[in-house]
């Protein structure tokens, strides 16, 4: 139990925990102390001073975000002196840069503006020299307008503390101070990885998302708490929509990813240019023609009935939700008795433990990464590893290729030196092992020696790999030996080689969201939903079941994949 500290805030008795700041103690009982530079996700630095409070027996006002509580402390959060000081600080903040609201993207959602309203600023107290600062638009997805920046340094702190990328800092001094990348290069040419965490945490309109700018204020949009489907980390996310259109995606602060997403998770959704499949299609007279669901399902059932079950093959991507995956197994294996499998590897070859968490990673003293490149394929895991390393953990990399993580490794071993890597971990107190598909199984066996000591995190190549593995599905793609083949692709696409193999089957059914080379050659095509049109769940690589929520309404005429499979089963 933490030690209790008795304090008074605005005359109210509060039992705070030792080590808490005045801000945290106040927040805990619902007393709102305003903040600008402070954000719960990062270390408080007391830069903006807007949270100043009156503390008995303290000389001058003190910032609540950094001041620790002590026994018997008496705090006033909205006394006349405090309010006067906050108005003065706001006056200073408005005296630099351009904080003119009418043409600012953030007007209505701006934390600086909200404070000016709260403290009734009806004009700017100090003259603003109006000197223009530069605008940096060199990054693909978001723009930095230095004129709107109040130098709260939230962006710098998320960049170093959460994304562990250390790109951002400040240059110059005094009134000339500006946020900069790598000491002063254009953002687009810097080491910035465009994870967009700074964009999400910026309290003003200094960082602007190109896609969703001016498209809707907070009061006009809907937020759906969901899960990112771009890899098996399954980052908690919020999908922000307006009138059925996705505006942007933000990371969920309370989830294991701590608000961080990667370039893909945050922006990839908006780069989609493929054409959506809107109705079932059947090849007639060597042309794909639109047909009704009834006709399409009847045709599919007929084709399966004509083939012996041994000659029917069904493969699905692991980038699909639990219900669809279970229904896929129930229908094709249970009802039809077909050959079933998945299109991506599922770590099925390894008999290693699962269940390690991202939190384990942060508290690890040694991190062993084998057969995977988290920074490329599971970026948020990569950031977590870098965070742990910044806090003193040692990274042991077991890899034969040019791995992105190599630069951060304390020791690097080749895949056939696994024994040495394991030995290194045995000498540490809290190791974490991350293993991916490139680990040779005989080397992976050596990791078993760490079973009692280490947490194991499997790096599945696709988002719902955990569930696919649990269902016993394997990457046994062999369509050429089949007469009838069903492929559930969702929004993934297949390599030319795999398309060629698939087309060797007499009858090819494809269930996909987008038109692609394989839908051109299929005999029958079913339209699939996108993951954010579904209500469902998946298992992330921690093995935790997480809810994937429907953020936009179902497009007209579309049926969820699991229901399509159920209807198919009814016809068999």
């Amino acid at each position: 139990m933490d030690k209790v500290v008795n304090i008074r805030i605005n005359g109210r008795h509060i039992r705070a925990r030792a080590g808490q700041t005045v801000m945290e103690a106040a927040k805990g009982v619902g007393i709102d102390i305003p903040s600008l530079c402070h954000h719960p996700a990062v270390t408080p630095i007391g830069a903006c001073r807007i949270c100043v409070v009156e503390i008995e027996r303290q000389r001058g006002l003190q910032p609540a975000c950094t001041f620790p509580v002590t026994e018997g402390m008496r705090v006033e959060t909205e006394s006349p002196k405090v309010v006067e000081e906050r108005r003065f600080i706001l006056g200073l903040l408005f005296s630099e840069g351009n904080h003119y609201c009418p043409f600012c993207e953030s007007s209505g959602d701006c934390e600086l503006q909200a404070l000016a309203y709260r403290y009734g600023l009806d004009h700017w107290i100090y003259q603003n020299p109006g000197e223009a600062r530069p605008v940096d638009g060199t990054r693909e997805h978001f723009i930095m307008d230095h004129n709107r920046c109040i130098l709260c340094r939230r962006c710098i702190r998320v960049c170093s503390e959460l994304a562990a990328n250390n790109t951002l800092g400040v240059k110059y001094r005094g009134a000339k101070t500006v946020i900069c990348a790598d000491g002063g290069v254009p953002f687009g040419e810097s080491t910035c990885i465009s994870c967009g965490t700074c964009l999400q945490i910026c309290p003003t309109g200094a960082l602007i998302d190109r896609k969703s700018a001016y498209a809707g204020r907070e009061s006009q949009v809907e937020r759906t708490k969901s899960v990112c489907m771009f890899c098996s980390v399954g980052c908690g996310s919020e999908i922000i929509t307006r009138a059925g259109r996705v505006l942007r995606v933000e990371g969920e602060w309370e989830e294991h990813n701590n608000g961080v997403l990667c370039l893909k998770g945050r922006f990839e959704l908006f780069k989609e240019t493929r054409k959506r499949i809107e109705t079932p299609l059947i090849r007639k007279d060597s042309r794909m023609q639109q047909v009704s669901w009834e006709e399409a399902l009847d045709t599919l059932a007929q084709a399966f009935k004509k083939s012996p079950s041994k000659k029917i093959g069904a493969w699905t991507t692991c980038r699909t939700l639990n219900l669809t995956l279970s229904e896929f197994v129930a229908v094709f294996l249970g009802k039809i008795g077909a050959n079933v499998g998945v299109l991506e590897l599922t770590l099925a070859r390894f008999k290693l433990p699962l269940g390690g968490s991202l939190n384990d990673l942060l508290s690890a003293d040694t991190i062993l990464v084998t057969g995977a490149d988290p920074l490329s394929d599971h970026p948020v895991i990569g950031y977590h590893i870098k965070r742990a390393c910044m806090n003193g953990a040692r990274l042991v990399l077991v890899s034969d290729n040019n791995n992105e993580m190599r630069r951060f490794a304390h020791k690097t071993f080749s895949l056939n030196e696994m024994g040495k890597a394991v030995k290194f971990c045995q000498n540490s107190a809290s190791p974490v092992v991350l293993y991916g598909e490139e680990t040779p199984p005989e080397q992976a066996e050596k990791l078993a020696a760490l079973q009692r000591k280490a947490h194991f995190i499997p790096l599945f190549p696709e988002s719902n790999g955990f569930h696919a593995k649990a269902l016993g599905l394997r990457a046994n793609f062999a369509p050429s030996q089949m007469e009838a083949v069903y492929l559930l692709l969702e929004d993934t696409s297949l390599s030319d080689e795999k398309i060629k193999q698939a087309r060797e089957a007499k009858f090819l059914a494809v269930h996909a969201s987008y038109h692609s080379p394989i839908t051109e050659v299929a005999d029958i095509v079913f339209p699939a939903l996108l993951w954010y049109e579904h209500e469902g769940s998946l298992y992330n690589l921690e093995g935790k079941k997480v809810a994937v929520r429907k953020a936009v309404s179902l497009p007209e005429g579309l049926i969820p994949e699991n229901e399509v499979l159920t209807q198919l089963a009814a016809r068999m």
Partner: protein
Amino acid sequence: MGGERSMAKIKIATDWLAACAGCHMSLLDLDERLVQLLDKIEITSSPITDLKYPPREGVTVGILTGTVNNTAHLEVARVMRERCQILVSLGDCSVLGGVPLMRNQVKMEDALRRAYVETESTVDGLIPRSEELAQPIFARPLDQVVKVDVYLPGCPPSADAIHFVIGELLEGRIPVLKDQVLKYD
């Protein structure tokens, strides 16, 4: 407007500086409330009536909108200040500087050339240089050239906000803006 009652009416003068007229449109948005107000106030002069200048004998309330943008604005602001007891700075341009402030970020000569010569629709443009014309100056909010008593920001301030401010002044109070009345956009 009965003769004997008009004696008791509060006199209000209004004018604009570098403004888009939006603030005065918002004033007209008072609709029937404007008619009710006219029982209590007399608008002596405004940019949208025949009489443009505040009367020499003075008014109780002066309302100015727009940015101080040229030498003529300096004069308008000075005269209004001299002839009114309470000066209201109305709208974002007047209170904060507004859009015209963006001109400060380029050199004056560049701004003039762009406006009078380089605009795509201009043929054989010429920068007006007559000494009879007002000269452009560094753009600034009203309170940087004269003392302002009441601020009402907004682009434009809503009719409700204007109604609130005039109402408070008629009650003899200096308005304190909050909630829906205090908006910067």
